[in-house]
């Protein structure tokens, strides 16, 4: 039994999931900050995973680096700045607001305002058509005349 177990253990190398117990900091507040920062940093060799979620070796290194900086007394922004300096904006899952990302960040607003304005313009254009459908005074007079005529007729 023990032999099989040992064999199986040998067969199961490598795969270690995301944050491991031995990486975690003793201070829960500091650890919470580390987790928070990690969830917004991209594992550079993975597909759209944060370093907090990733199993890759690089992600582990980055997680340890984040914790090292925090223990050295860096603020969250300083840790982030340090990593951006080393790896570029690519590491940020939330891209910074700058000239190249202006369109990205403002797109929802543009679309909302643009289509809202288009709707408004459209309904304004429609309204005259609606009032044109109303009767002119002459037509109104003619209509009441006809109605009266009809009312006059018996049965």
């Amino acid at each position, binding site marked *: 039994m023990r032999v*099989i*177990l040992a064999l*199986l*253990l040998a*067969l*199961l*190398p*490598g*795969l*270690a*999931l*995301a*944050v*491991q*117990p*031995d990486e*975690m900091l003793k201070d829960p507040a500091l650890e919470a900050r580390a987790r928070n920062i990690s*969830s*917004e940093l*991209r594992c550079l060799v993975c*597909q*759209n*995973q*944060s370093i907090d*979620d990733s199993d890759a070796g690089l992600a582990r290194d980055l997680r340890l680096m984040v914790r090292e900086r925090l223990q050295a007394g860096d603020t969250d922004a300083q840790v982030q700045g340090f990593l951006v300096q080393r790896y*570029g*904006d*690519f*590491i*940020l*899952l*939330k*891209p910074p607001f700058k000239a*190249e*990302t202006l*369109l*990205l*960040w403002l*797109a*929802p607003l543009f*679309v*909302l305002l643009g*289509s*809202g304005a288009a*709707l408004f313009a459209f*309904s304004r254009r*429609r309204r005259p*058509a*609606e009032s044109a459908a109303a009767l002119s005074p002459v037509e109104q007079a003619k209509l009441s005349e006809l109605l009266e005529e009809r009312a006059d007729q018996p049965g």
Partner: protein
Amino acid sequence: MIVEIGHYALVLALALAIVQGVAPLVGALRRDAALMAMAQPAAVMQFLLIGVSFAALTHAYVTSDFSVVNVFENSHSLKPLIYKYSGVWGNHEGSMLLWVLILALFGATVALFSRGMPDDLRALVLAVQSWLSAAFLLFVLLTSNPFARMIPAPIEGRDLNPLLQDPGLAIHPPLLYVGYVGFSITFSFAAAALISGRIDAAWARYVRPWTLIAWIFLTLGIAMGSYWAYYTLGWGGFWFWDPVENASLMPWLAGTALLHSAAVMEKRDALKIWTIFLAILAFSLSLLGTFLVRSGVLTSVHSFATDPQRGVFILGILIFFIGGSLALFALRASALKPGGIFAPVSREGALVLNNLLLTTSCATVFVGTLYPLALEAMTDEKISVGAPFFNLTFGPLFIPIVLAMPIGQMLAWKRGDLYGAAQRLTLACAIGFVGAVLLYAMRGGPIVPPVLAGLALYLIVGSFVEIWGRVSGGSSVGAMFSRAIGLPRSAWGTAIAHAGIGLTLFGLAATGWGVERIVTVKPNQPVVAGPYEIIVRGLEPRDGSNFRELVAHTDILEGGRLIATMDPSRRSFTTRTMVRTEAGIKTIGLGQVYMNIAEVRDDGSLDLRLYWKPYVALIWLGALVMALGGLLSLSDRRLRIGIAKRAATRVVAQPAE
């Protein structure tokens, strides 16, 4: 031999698709009944041929015919039987074959269940649908042939990627594809309407059941994919704003908008141009999704293919169909007469707001998904757009949608009473508010989860206020019951689908109250997660058909009493030498205990990731409830295909223009 028959059937299907794309089109334009009549048998035959082809490939998988390259690369003789079936679409070639199969399935169903439709509309729809299948059949045959042979045949296959050896593979892709590809029919309807110039309320009635079917399946497909990721990936994440997920979310958002605008078109003959545009948009986004996933533009778990030839081919298909339909749209849209007029505060107005917000959120996902690609192509600068971006932009857009949903249900057509609607929602608002305050008091923590949960409660209650208003006038319980039964099923469908969104939202809000424990333990050493105590009792090695695993027998205790057990494990697949963890998941009420073995150490201790996730099941239950709402709507008398037929004959009987 069977493999060759499959290949040949596919070639025949292509030839037939070309005939079906041309003859009925010419017939419709020349008013030639004989040519138009070719569409129906051709569509059915096309489906049968592709069905034969699909069956042939399945046969090759089940019999482990490794002389077929596709089978060799993705199967193994020891693979469990269910994965031999589902493995057919667990690779690029096979999944494209499933794509065309479903495309043809929709064509065939339209051919069979549309006897009441005007002949020219049906002929045009089937012709356009056939153009689509011809393009994709060509794609399969030229760039992704699943029937290619290799000589000599290898003795054993390379096995399917272990991550895909899961019941999820049997369910998720077919559901998702039926949804995705289902929008092809609305696309074909839109193109047919633009070609024939007949765009009216009757058209909206014909197209609405198809939109609903596609929407129901897409909802289920997305939810299933999300749950699959949740239990497979090992830390309980269920949505990552991955480009591949976004590719399925975009058609869902456009399709949801389409459902609502088509309702306006059907009832009030308004929003016609917009509805046609959305019908084109929804399928264009499906095509875009296929391009993103299949071309390997984005490297992601879902891209089996990284062959540029395929990418360029799909891009060609994409440009041809989206460009063509938009050109047609530009030519014809100006000729459309605006229909019914309505005040801004009305059911129509609310649905316009719904469309505005849904298309904006769709555009947000679109830009966020493609921006990094575009930026890198133009400036060589690499940026990442991940979950934090989408949460920050998509989230705020969805809150007004939730707020407006019950109000919209309450407004009358043409001109509504906003004050009255708000008044009738007092109870829903109160329940939402009190719920939020109570949850905040009980659970503490950040303010966002209770606020979202309060919104969810408001939505769930608010969804039924309109129905309650129509039922509560009954004199007795029995009378109220018969009133409730007598309501149109689509009214129930709306209420239930909206409430489903509320349930999902509540589940999402509750993720904020989850408990996470990342610990190293020895067997029999308890760990506390939320209200439960979790104890690993012992490890046991086990053999599967094509893997070996180490199982951790685990007890869940509440107040010292054993309430459940679970068996998480680590599986090692011999052929691909890959390890996969199987999470242990136990549903308790609406919450789940989730456990994953991250590492087994030499001294017998285990690294665990343990979670207590309250109300988490609501996320997917909500999606099921949404689909149920859709199903109820679909079963409404008004939308049933036979009824549409009778309604159509009435429409046809009207004096010609």
